[in-house]
């Protein structure tokens, strides 16, 4: 991961606002289903539609999930109130959104990125989602030039948590890692499936630039960032755009900008000066939410081991670095517990990690190969009875058959540890049959070893241990 990013001497200052849809069965303030993909306007009720006389009633499970994710981010869970954010838009049924303003449910947490950068979490609060509008006529489904719009209120009222980070992010990679890690945590605690491509996780970036040590500059909010990759591209573009403006002596206007994935640029959406006055006031139809210490502790105690802790545990057991690729990948797949199980069954954790990373991409978090079987395989490797290549082939059988006994399979394949004498004679045969390669190798061309090793492998039908062959060749060269 890039640890620093500068452009013409400027650094970027980035905060991310992430909205996640909570994985509840029903909506935040009414009992219509919280479901993606149903026929339009089939998950509606008087509250969802904002009909006259309808009243909101808070979903306990939404509060529980908000607490879970807040505690997983080391936030303080506090007494909170709801507020109305008033503005007109066709997908806003009441012409106000019920959100949290002065007193959000979670405050003052943090997220540690792999590589130990800490990003502060200012707050996380509950709010309801809006409906969805589709624009008909015009080009590309955009608003401008459309003939009319159609509104579906299925999504209206779905529970969201908005997680606001402090402006602690300094590079595109950090931003991407933040999003990735946040997602992993949300999934781990069961708060959300957090899929950017489905809209259950949405990222807005607040970007400004400054010379190191100077005050924060004016920031712009970037919207329409729809993938982790876009997060990196968008903030990089925006930071560079701002630097360009500053260097040209222009003033940066505080505004909201739209990221266009196709042309790779941000465009003005609206300036903050024209923005609606939201006239926030405390929601009179709802009462205070004040989880008691007992509830908070119950939620905290029920949290699963979080990704960072799981990575640390896996790294320790396998002897790898915390941010080693294998550690990141295997933990993200949820296969870290499996590797530990292999170790507990007497296997070699390091070898198991490599195998799982390379061969278990499709296995999900509950691999079909019994841990004891893989343990057996790794023991053979460690004892020198199988080469890495041979082990891979046994592993392939494991995957096809859902396990097996390593020794039996090895024997069936005719894998035997080759004794040294046999190996030495094969090496000598190779030297004899490849005089040009041998000459080059002796002259110092390391590449020439490949042909010699290849010959031994061919003669041994792939059973020779490549490392042992290389070692023998070097021995021969030394005395040649």
């Amino acid at each position, binding site marked *: 991961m890039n640890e620093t990013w500068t452009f013409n001497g400027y650094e970027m200052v980035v905060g991310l606002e992430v909205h996640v849809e909570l994985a*509840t*069965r*029903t909506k935040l303030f*009414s*009992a*219509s*289903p919280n479901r993606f993909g149903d*026929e*339009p*306007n*089939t*998950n*509606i*009720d*008087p509250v969802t*539609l904002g009909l006259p006389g309808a009243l909101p*009633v*808070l*979903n*306990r*499970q*939404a*509060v529980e999930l908000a607490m879970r994710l807040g505690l997983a981010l080391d936030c303080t869970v506090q007494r909170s109130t709801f507020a109305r954010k008033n*503005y*007109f*838009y*066709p997908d806003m049924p009441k012409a106000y959104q019920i959100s949290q303003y002065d007193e959000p449910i979670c405050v003052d947490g943090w997220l540690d990125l792999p590589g130990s950068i800490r990003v502060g979490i200012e707050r996380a609060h509950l709010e309801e989602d809006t409906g969805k*509008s*589709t*624009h008909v006529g015009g080009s590309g489904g955009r*608003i*401008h030039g*459309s*003939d*009319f*719009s*159609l*509104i*579906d*209120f299925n999504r209206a009222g779905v529970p969201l948590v908005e997680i606001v980070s402090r402006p602690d992010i300094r590079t595109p990679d950090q931003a991407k890692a933040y999003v990735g890690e946040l997602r992993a945590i949300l999934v781990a605690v069961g708060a959300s499936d957090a899929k950017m491509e489905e809209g259950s996780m949405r990222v807005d970036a607040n970007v400004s630039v400054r010379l190191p040590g100077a005050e924060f500059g004016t920031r712009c909010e970037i919207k329409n960032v729809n993938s982790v990759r876009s997060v990196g591209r968008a903030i990089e573009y925006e930071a560079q755009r701002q630097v360009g403006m500053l260097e040209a002596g222009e003033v940066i206007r505080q505004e909201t900008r*739209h990221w266009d994935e196709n042309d790779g640029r941000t465009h003005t*959406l*609206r300036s903050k000066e*024209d*923005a*609606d*006055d939201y*006239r926030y*006031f*405390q929601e*009179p139809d*709802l*009462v*205070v*939410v*004040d*989880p008691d210490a007992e509830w908070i502790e119950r939620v905290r105690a029920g949290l699963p081991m979080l990704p960072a802790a799981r990575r640390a545990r896996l790294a320790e057991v396998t002897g790898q670095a915390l941010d080693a690729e294998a550690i990141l990948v295997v933990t993200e797949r949820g296969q870290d517990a499996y590797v530990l199980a292999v170790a507990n069954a007497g296997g070699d954790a390091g070898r198991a990690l490599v195998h799982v990373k390379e061969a278990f991409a499709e296995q999900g978090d509950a691999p079909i190969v019994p841990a004891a079987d893989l343990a057996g395989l790794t023991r053979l490797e460690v004892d020198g009875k199988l080469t890495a290549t041979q082990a891979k082939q046994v592993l392939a059988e494991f995957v096809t058959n859902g396990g097996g006994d390593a020794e039996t399979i090895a024997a069936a394949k005719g894998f035997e540890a080759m004794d040294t004498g046999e190996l030495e004679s094969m090496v000598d045969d190779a030297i004899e049959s490849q005089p040009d390669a041998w000459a080059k190798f002796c002259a110092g061309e390391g590449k020439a070893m490949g042909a010699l090793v290849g010959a031994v492998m061919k003669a041994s039908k792939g059973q020779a241990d490549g490392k042992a062959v290389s070692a023998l060749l070097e021995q021969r060269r030394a005395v040649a």
Partner: protein
Amino acid sequence: MRAVAWLFVSDRITPEAVAKVAKLARLSLSDDELDQATHQLSAMLDHFADIDALDLDDVEPMTHPTPIANVMREDIEMDCLDRDEVLAAAPAAEDGRFRVPPILGLDD
């Protein structure tokens, strides 16, 4: 930001402020209506200036008569409204959805 209590009576609220507020509330006023509204709102706000005299520094806002807390419901589905019925009552509908004119002049 305190209301400035010593301004002369008819200037309690300006026509510009009334126009701004009307726009926020999506109400359009003719010039006469704007005038009348300014006068009426001004008179009201004059009357309402009586609370400026109170010392309320130690008084917390009261948003609610009842001190109840933690009213929540279980995460259980209830029956939904019938879509056809609802759309039949809508001013305009198409394709199972509510139809509106192009969304312009609003924040995107």
